[in-house]
């Protein structure tokens, strides 16, 4: 559970730090005092205050939940690895190619995000389509890797390491598929002429953050699987 605890400790430290900032020196019993300023997260130049879109915070909270999920998988995997009868995992080399493709899809999305900031609609389209294609290729690549493994006689029930491999890659792929759904919505919005640029920027930004995040998770998982 070490990894999960490290993650939780970092998260809790962040929450506590934020709370201290929000609550220290506040006199809740005082009616109508400077406590009102806290509402604006400590920003006193109220004119420049731009509230965080709800959906961005929502994604942030969701990513915390997903982190907890994968941290628990990693914890379970490492706990299991320490037992004497652990048999190491054979990773298909295809995973290296897939990793490259996933990096590429993240790069494409970053490109689209930058383009959206510049209001360059055509470039956003190119970037987001490129990313979509790479992501689909990644999923197909993962399936191919599964095929290679099972063709070599490594099935999900063969040994615990294989079980973890299939389970973790499947969970990761499901999160990617969920992201593809959001990406599809952004794409359809991009082709509707009525949709405004700020709306598209937000969509692209959320997708890009999610993609980078899943890439990071994948790199950690992949490193873990290589390390047997």
């Amino acid at each position, binding site marked *: 559970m070490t990894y999960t605890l490290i993650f939780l400790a970092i998260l809790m430290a962040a929450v506590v730090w934020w*709370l201290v900032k929000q609550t220290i020196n506040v*006199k809740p019993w005082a*009616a*109508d005092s400077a406590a009102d300023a806290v509402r604006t997260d400590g920003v006193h130049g109220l004119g420049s205050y731009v509230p*965080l879109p709800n959906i961005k915070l929502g994604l942030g909270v969701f990513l915390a939940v997903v982190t907890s999920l994968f941290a628990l998988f990693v914890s*379970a995997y490492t*706990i299991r690895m320490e037992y004497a009868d652990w048999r190491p995992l054979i990773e298909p080399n295809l995973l290296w190619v897939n990793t490259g493709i996933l990096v590429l899809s993240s790069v494409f999305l970053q490109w689209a995000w930058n383009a959206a900031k510049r209001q360059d609609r055509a470039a956003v389209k190119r970037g987001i389509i490129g990313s979509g294609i790479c992501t689909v290729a990644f999923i197909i690549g993962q399936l191919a890797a599964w095929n290679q493994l099972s063709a070599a006689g490594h099935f999900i029930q063969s040994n615990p390491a294989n*079980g973890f491999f299939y*389970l973790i890659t499947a969970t990761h792929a499901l999160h990617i598929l969920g992201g593809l759904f959001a990406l599809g919505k952004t794409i359809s919005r991009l082709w509707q002429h009525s949709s405004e640029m700020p709306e598209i920027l937000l969509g692209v930004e959320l997708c890009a953050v999610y993609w980078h995040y899943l890439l990071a998770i994948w790199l950690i998982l992949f490193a873990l699987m290589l390390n047997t």
Partner: protein
Amino acid sequence: MSDVAHDAVDFAPPAEVEEMELYHPKTWIGKYVWSQDAKVIAIQYGITAILIGLVALVLSVIMRLQLGFPHTFDFIDPANYLQFVTMHGMIMVIYLLTALFLGGFGNYLIPLMVGARDMVFPYVNMISYWVYLAAVLVLVASIFVPGGSTGAGWTLYPPQAISAGTPGIDGGIILMLISLALFIIGFTMGGLNYIVTVLQARTRGMSLMRLPLTVWGIFMATVLALLAFPALFVSAIMMLLDRLLGTSFFMPAMISLGEQTSYDGGSPLLFQHLFWFFGHPEVYIVALPAFGIVSDLLSTHARKAIFGYRMMVWAIVAIGALSFVVWAHHMYVSGMNPYFGFFFATTTLIIAVPTAIKVYNWVLTLWRGNIRLNVPMLFAIGFIFTFINGGLTGLFLGNVTIDLPLSDTYFVVAHFHMVMAVSPILVVFGAIYHWYPKITGRMLNDTLGKIHFWITFLGTYAIYFPMHYLGFEGLPRRYFSYGDTEFMSASSQDLNAAITIAAIIVAFAQIFFLINLFTSYFRGKLAGPNPWEATTLEWQTADTPPKHGNFGEELPVVYRWAYDYSVPNADLDYIPQNVSPSDLKKPTAAQQGEIEN
């Protein structure tokens, strides 16, 4: 007290809370079935949770019948006794308490108390309920599949949970695990809403330190749930794969019914770690909303500011953080390294510190308060007694050396029922008596409420207090019948019969509550907007019950915390959160001097 700015200028921070665009349904179905209004969703959650909770209540009575009068009832055999135990525990902890506190009270109270029109993602909120309902239906379906529901105990420990000989290993355990996974998915959608709404949708002036403690409790419980439920999700999925695809995550190589199983190399201990990594925070997922709600009930009905508000908030946060590092105290008998046990015993005892702070503060809130002993207050005070009782036995069980002999006896059953079953349920009742007037516009009947309270409160003591003695005798839990066991004194069977009679009386007393809920809806006394003379925003709405959008044309502006009761020199003994200081009569200089002294 000189800092109390009673004559401060009428300052309102800029309107950074945007008016929210609400979805306005046109049909009856859109309003009450596929509703996106948090209040309707709350009631849907509440009714579903209470109905499934009644099933669990009936199951507990059947279990008690068997224990109190063994060999009397033919319809209870050892297999379905275990199924009843399992379903009772699982339903009560997850499908009733978690769903009711977070899905029910969370949905109803968060938007109203923070001054929002609705949850920030109403559509996701609606889906959350329907996924929860699906989880409940799958759970109910598991009772009717061949072999019946699982009888593995609510902890579902492998290997026995999916090995031959345990009831319900055909379909029951599969549906149970699917139902849990669904519940977690549904909860995550709701939980995202609660967090983002509390952080983003607070109205003008509602700083974090002006939030009622109810919101703090539900907020922190949601944080815990979002982080802890994935552990249950992971273990449910892995066990499902073990059961369906023959993987060996949790299943060791073993001989079952004389035959070598195909499993090889799984670790049952891994499951225990994952399960309790969820299971312990789960205790606080249920307890923290109860702590928050009870603080507000005590303050309102004692007409006194909550004692130590900031400490209460920090205690909630501290309990939440600590609850992640105590899980292995459920596993002392699993053969762990003694240093490991020492560590977890220490953290377990440390968590008693913030908890005790809360208890002292509740008692000090009552101290010299102008206590109104109405039904919500009775339940709130009852909670304090029961919670202290259950909490103190927790100190015993938290120590390894004392836990070892008491583990898996009725002492444990008594402890966790007192601390996380009866205590939160008393708060649930108190909260329903408290907020029912806002939800329906009518008061619940006082006499029926008092009958309900006294039978429930005293009755639960008659049930659980004697169980401590049974535990000392070494009576193991989860047993169908005890036969002629040597260490059991003859009187322990009499005690079991007495407990059963008390349990039946308490179960039937709930009929008073249900009748009250039902008849008061039609014939209760009209409540008016603020029958308890409370300060929080939900009592200041234009309509009772509040309409879609909660507040009228304009969102309220908050000028003070939620605990301005019995403020010196004020006209009334309460000042609602949305009353600005300039609207109050300014105190004279002499009175001001009095306040400062």
